[in-house]
């Protein structure tokens, strides 16, 4: 029997969770009725939802125990289980935090006066948040798939917001096709799992199953299904168009939270399987390395700000998979230290990435909102006209490169520790791959974000739109500030996050297995101890070096050239050119024009572009070829309804006869 206090605690946790879902779902409804107040109403309801949900999560993660409820079952269908366990609590935090920030942002960014469909965006954003919140707590295949489909459809509608542009429609269409393919694969996976465990409720798989053919089939289906959603290379190609086409606050929710639902799936899978074979973790490590390196390499060549950020999401999913893979290897081979460090790094990176990617997308949205363009080559000098947005983007860039003392470093550090620990073992090859991949990813990410920040916010404006920029309204700055402070907070005081991580890790290890505490394996307090002196020293030196008020201000030295103009600055493509050309054997960049001939040449145009290798070189040509082949079967579509009904009749007859014979 559970002690009454514990029971009350469970009920409180579950109630807060369900209320949070409810508030999120209805947050868009006031906006449908009142035009002026819709944005603020939605934001208020979403903030309430976030506060409820995050307190529920904190309740469970910092001490309480999880709880679950059974939705009512009828004779034929059992609707299943919603369970607010530590995994759900952990994943709920980024879901609600980012949705709340996006709602606040949307007050000014997508309001009724300047944009069309604002009420629709608010409504579906609320529903998206509600479905996401439901998904994290689902522990029955039906509820899970229901929430999954709901989330995918809401996201589709949101991506299609600006449906007048052909590019948006194409992006939404690709997104829909990919997400439904993933869902189909998941259906197959859950069917196999139900066959093995005898039910659709999520419970631990019997030991020994994972190594059989059924287990392999289940893993492959889950890998593909969740991989589609998470954006693992080579199933990533829907991500950049969709995230670039959606409104920026929607992109921040999609990039920050939606793709993490694929990771949630992997985490749940890791929790069910008591004895995963080593090759499962190995595949995750290899895919993680591939996604990470290719993701950041492709990001380097982009000149659209939001596509660049979207490719970075792919890279960070790669890093998360590296951590998950190492953790799974630790679970398979019975090395608790490896398991703890790998999983903890991956989970913390899930939280961190949602924070700083959400921040980056919001900042990018602010830039796009003010200047009207996403093209890097048309921006510049915005650091002076939009200082707060620039500061927010800087924090996000600093965090995403994994530089100390911010939160990105903490999670990457944990995964590094896991990789280093794995070197001492039998499967050192995988750890070496992880290590090499992480170091390359870190350096390339630094290059890419130096380019992004430098080209957009520094230097001189490269176009009149950028020259006339002004700071965004405070409703857009506030959520950026919230996310940035959480990033800095986690970076400066990572010990606060150790206890929740330990609780989630104990779920992943399975019942009755003791794991070493994270704090004992990784000196998180040392990081804090170093971060604060670092910052203080930096500030002291900066104050010392700031020139006195009467210091002289000059234009930048132009090496004697008398008429420098902003177009002579390094462009984004030039900045990244060294690396892109160096990796041209995997990236296949396209360039056209630019050859200058003669002593007095005419003006020339130059264009460079980096098409997505999977989408533009494999998927589209492949599908076009298949469509051509299938069009030879057109004759079957005669157009007469009678013929179609005849087809149905013949099929029915065939099936009946076949059943008899």
């Amino acid at each position, binding site marked *: 029997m559970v002690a009454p206090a514990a029971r009350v605690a469970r009920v409180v946790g579950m109630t807060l969770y369900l209320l949070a879902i409810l508030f999120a779902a209805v947050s868009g409804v006031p906006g449908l009725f009142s035009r002026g107040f819709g944005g603020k109403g939605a934001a208020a309801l979403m903030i309430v939802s976030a506060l409820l949900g995050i307190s529920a999560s904190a309740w469970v993660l910092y001490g309480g125990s999880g709880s679950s409820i059974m939705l009512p079952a009828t004779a034929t269908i059992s609707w299943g289980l919603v369970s607010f366990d530590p995994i759900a609590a952990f994943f709920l935090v980024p879901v609600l935090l980012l949705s709340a920030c996006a709602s606040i942002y949307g007050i000014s960014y997508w309001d009724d006066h300047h944009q069309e469909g604002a009420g629709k965006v608010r409504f579906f954003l609320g529903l998206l948040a509600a479905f996401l919140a439901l998904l994290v707590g689902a522990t029955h295949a039906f509820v899970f798939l229901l929430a999954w489909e709901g989330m995918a459809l809401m996201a589709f509608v949101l991506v299609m917001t600006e449906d007048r542009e052909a590019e948006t429609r194409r992006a939404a269409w690709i997104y829909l096709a990919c997400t439904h393919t993933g869902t189909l694969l998941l259906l197959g996976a859950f069917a196999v799992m139900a066959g093995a465990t005898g039910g659709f409720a999520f419970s631990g798989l019997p030991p020994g199953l994972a190594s059989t053919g059924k287990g392999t089939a289940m893993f492959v289906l889950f890998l593909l299904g969740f991989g589609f959603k998470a954006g693992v290379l080579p199933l990533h190609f829907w991500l950049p168009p969709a995230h670039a086409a959606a409104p920026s606050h929607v992109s921040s929710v999609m990039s920050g939270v939606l793709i993490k639902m694929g990771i949630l799936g992997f985490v749940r899978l890791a929790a069910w399987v008591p004895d995963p074979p080593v090759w499962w973790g190995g595949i995750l490590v290899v895919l993680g390395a591939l996604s990470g390196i290719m993701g950041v390499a492709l990001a380097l060549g982009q000149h659209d700000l939001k596509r660049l950020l979207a490719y970075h999401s792919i890279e960070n999913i790669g890093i998360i998979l590296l951590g998950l893979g190492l953790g799974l290897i630790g679970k398979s081979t019975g090395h608790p230290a490896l398991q703890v460090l790998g999983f903890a790094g991956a989970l913390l990176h899930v939280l961190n990435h949602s924070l700083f990617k959400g921040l980056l997308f919001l900042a990018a949205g602010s830039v796009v909102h003010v200047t009207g363009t996403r093209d890097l080559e048309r921006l510049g000098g915005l650091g002076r006209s939009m200082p707060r947005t620039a500061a927010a983007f800087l924090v996000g860039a600093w965090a995403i490169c994994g530089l100390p003392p911010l939160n990105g470093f903490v999670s990457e550090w944990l995964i590094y520790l896991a990789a280093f620990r794995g070197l001492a073992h039998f499967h050192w090859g995988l750890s070496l791959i992880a290590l090499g991949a992480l170091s390359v990813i870190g350096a390339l990410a630094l290059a890419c974000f130096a380019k992004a920040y430098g080209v957009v916010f520094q230097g001189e404006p490269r176009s009149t739109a950028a020259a006339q920029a002004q700071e965004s309204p405070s409703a857009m700055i506030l959520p950026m500030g919230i996310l940035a402070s959480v990033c800095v907070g986690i970076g400066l005081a990572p010990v606060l996050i150790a206890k929740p991580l330990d609780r989630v890790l104990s779920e992943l290890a399975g019942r009755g297995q003791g794991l070493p505490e994270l704090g004992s394996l990784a000196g998180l307090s040392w990081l804090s101890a170093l971060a604060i002196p670092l910052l203080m020293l930096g500030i002291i030196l900066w104050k010392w070096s700031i020139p006195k008020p009467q210091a002289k201000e000059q234009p930048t030295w132009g090496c004697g050239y008398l008429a420098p103009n902003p177009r002579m600055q390094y462009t984004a493509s030039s900045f990244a050119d060294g690396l892109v050309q160096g990796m041209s054997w995997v990236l296949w960049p396209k360039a056209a024009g630019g050859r200058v001939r003669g002593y007095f040449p005419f003006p020339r145009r130059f264009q460079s572009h980096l098409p997505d290798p999977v989408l533009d070189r494999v998927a589209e040509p492949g599908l076009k070829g298949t469509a051509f082949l299938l069009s030879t079967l057109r004759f079957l*579509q005669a157009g*007469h309804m009678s013929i179609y*009904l005849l087809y149905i009749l013949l099929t029915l007859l065939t099936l009946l006869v076949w059943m008899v014979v």
Partner: protein
Amino acid sequence: MFHDILITLTVLTNFTLVATSRIHKSIQVAAFQGVLLGLLPMTLGLGFHVHILLMAAAAVIVKGWFIPFLLRRALAKVHIHREVHPYIGYTVSLMLCALGTGMSIVLAHNLPLKPGGPFALFVPAALATLFTGFLLLVSRRKAITQVVGYLVLENGIFLFGLMLIEDMPILVETGVLLDLFVGIFVMGIVINHISVAFDSMDTRQLAELKD
């Protein structure tokens, strides 16, 4: 015993529907079939609970009066009285219907469904009605006759569902509701719009919508 008579009458009405070219007559016969099926629950020996009486009454009213009423109203608007030039001629369709009935008896015998008691004839009758409905749908040109064919199809499904009346009465009631759905939605919108948009009830014109 009564239920056997009702079932046999149903199968006979199938033949009538297939053979007639007069639309009024086919509507009448379809109504009659509906009444037969509506009365069927009462003859199964389950007693005369309020539930069963209500269900029978609902089925009779909807299938026997309401839908034919709507059909006749639609017919009055478009002034058609005969089905001419169906895809499959009347003699041939009569023979096909007989073939279908025979085949459904054979299939019912061989399929692993052996309901006992009063339900013995249900499966072959249901299958036969199903095929008749399909035949009407496939072979007729006029939209109204196709709707009648859909109604017959539904009667076949209703017959199947009646076998479950003890365990899942809700399924049977949902069947009646589905009839209502057909009556209101399909006819009102489809026929109205076809005649408005194309100025004709000839479904050949629908082939223009081919991809």
